């Protein structure tokens, strides 16, 4: 009887372990827009790695700066050489937390609004970011959507005065990732 009780207790204790799911993607899309009325400037990175923990809400994104694709060759060159200095700073990383992860029911399909707080490490500078987004649960997959703006000056990215009216001082960053369960 005692043994059975211990067995039941052990079984109950292991349940939370089973539900501690991690979701990940290697093909997340992160795009940015830094254009003005004078010129459209945008790039997209289609190979962003991201992982989040459904229990703790810890979330991370990592991408290679050279992986941004542009409509114009010259834009890509300037982005890498003059603005992001991607030889010196090849990666950008975001590490943070979905603060209201407890409001997301991964067992039930639907769209859940989330708030993410964390630190964006870009161009060798680290800055706190807070943004809202959505997690869309469909069976075993989760789709994340978010959009936020950053100030280029915060990351010590300088805009030459010659193109001041073409490059925006703030950049809108959009996140679009499809996650699968990490097995």
């Amino acid at each position, binding site marked *: 009887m005692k043994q059975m009780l211990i067995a039941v207790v052990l079984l109950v204790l292991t349940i939370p372990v089973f539900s501690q799911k991690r979701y990940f993607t*290697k*093909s997340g*899309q992160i795009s940015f827009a830094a254009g003005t009325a004078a010129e459209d400037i945008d790039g997209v990175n*289609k*190979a962003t*790695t991201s992982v989040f923990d459904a229990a703790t809400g810890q979330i991370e994104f*990592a*991408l*290679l700066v*050279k*992986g941004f*694709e*542009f*409509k*114009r*060759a*010259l834009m*890509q060159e300037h982005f890498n050489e003059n603005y992001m200095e991607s*030889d010196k700073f*090849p*990666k950008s990383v975001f590490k943070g937390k979905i603060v209201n992860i407890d409001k997301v029911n991964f067992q039930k399909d639907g769209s859940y609004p989330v708030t993410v707080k964390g630190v964006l490490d870009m161009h060798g500078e680290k800055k706190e970011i807070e943004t809202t987004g959505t997690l869309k649960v469909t069976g075993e997959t989760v789709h994340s959507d978010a959009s936020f703006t950053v100030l280029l000056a915060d990351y010590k990215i300088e805009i030459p005065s010659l193109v001041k009216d073409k490059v925006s001082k703030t950049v809108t960053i959009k996140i679009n990732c*499809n996650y699968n369960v990490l097995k």
Partner: protein
Amino acid sequence: MRTWKKIITGVIVLALAAAGYGWFLYQKPPPDIRKEKGGIEITAIELLKAFQQDEMAGNAKYVDKVLIVSGIVNGIQTDSSGQATVTLRTNDLLAAVTCSFYQDDEGVKKIKTGAPVRIKGICTGMLSDIVLNKCSLAE
């Protein structure tokens, strides 16, 4: 007087040519990697090893270069927009070679999990995986 006219006409023609060339350079789209000839032939296993041994050297040797990577397909993922990502197996369980394909690429449909493949693309560096973008199926 006539020489002056000639000089002015010459200057205007040169200025127009320069502006035209500038506009051409400005509007030039990025090169289509599918049409590029050649590329560095390497296996997925060797490529990962090169980066794991010395990431800086790997960056210098392979990043921004056209590679033709051969390996065994670990998985294929296509999203709703038709954007496909193929991963190639390596000797490391935790790291692969991730190949992000051209959105409209037809070749990716011929790729099968577990089969050998040669993929052409631009190396962008190492996260935990080695990443290639603008990929297509190599002939």
